[in-house]
């Protein structure tokens, strides 16, 4: 027997309805807090990845700027001469290789 035996069925049902509602609300609030914590962690992770990518982009931009500057310093004629010389060197080297055999 319990100390609540003098409760009427109607009183018990009413009490359980309000207790269940309170427990349910607390459980839902806990779930929302858990979801919030998960989202906060996700946002922090995305921020860290964004910071890393931003830093990498900055590094690449420095390199690109340097390459652009170098490219613009070389005249088109000098550039063509460099390419022709390179091709000729390769051809000579290939022919010499065949002769040695």
């Amino acid at each position: 027997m319990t100390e609540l035996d003098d409760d009427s069925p109607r009183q018990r049902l009413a009490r359980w309805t309000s207790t269940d509602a309170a427990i349910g609300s607390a459980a839902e609030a806990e779930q929302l807090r858990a979801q919030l914590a998960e989202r906060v962690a996700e946002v922090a992770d995305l921020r860290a990845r964004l910071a890393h990518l931003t830093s990498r982009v900055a590094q690449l931009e420095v390199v690109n700027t340097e390459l652009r500057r170098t490219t613009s310093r070389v005249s088109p004629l000098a550039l063509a001469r460099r390419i022709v010389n390179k091709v000729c060197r390769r051809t000579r080297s290939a022919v010499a290789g065949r002769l040695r055999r």
Partner: protein
Amino acid sequence: MTVSAIVPSIGTGGVIRGTHRTFVTESVRSVLATANVDIEVIVVAGREMPAETVDELRALGPEVRIVEYRDAFNFSAVVNLGAAHATGDHLLLLNDDTEVVTDDWLVRMIDACGPGVGAVGAKLLFEDGTLQHAGHTYRTALGHVAFGLPGDSAGRNGVLLRRREVAGVTAACMLTPYSVFDAVGGFTVGLPGNYNDVDYCMKLRVAGWSCVYEPAAVLYHFESKSRVAGIKPEEIELIQRRWLTHLVHDRYTPGNV
């Protein structure tokens, strides 16, 4: 110690082992024959229950009380109504399509319901002797451990043969102290057909009580193995809204039972 058995029923019948029976009458009869403790049986009778079934139940003995339930079916509301009329210090929630197998089942369940325990579940067998219930598992879905295995399966390292803490137990046969039921506000009427026992067990666990499976308490549960649960989207939504993070971290289910 007094146990109040709460048996929701509308007086349906069926053929078991070739013989037609009214489930609730035979279930209550087997409970009274084997209880071995002070017991009252509260049959919460839906409006569909035939008058002759009510008469049959009353004829089983003075321990049987009938409480009428006139609203649309809501398992949680039915259980709460029965519990509201209970005088025992333990509640035994029992489906009407059950039959006791082991004579000391209730004593074993009471023994398992020690300090800190909020609910005890039994081993339930289908009519063909296969396992219907050996505790809940919430690991990948809300279901039953070892569902459909042979009834005498030991499981990995004999886990199915041991009294052990589980994620939850079915309300088809559940012993719970009245004080615990009262403290957590009974069953949630927002879950009329499914997951009300999952929700109840979650309320217990979050409040610090455990759920225990007692394999020495064996009953038949004549529920069809192919029963379609008819789960409503709002039931899934509510159970997840309340307990999702707890459910997905089921630390009670072994990896392979």
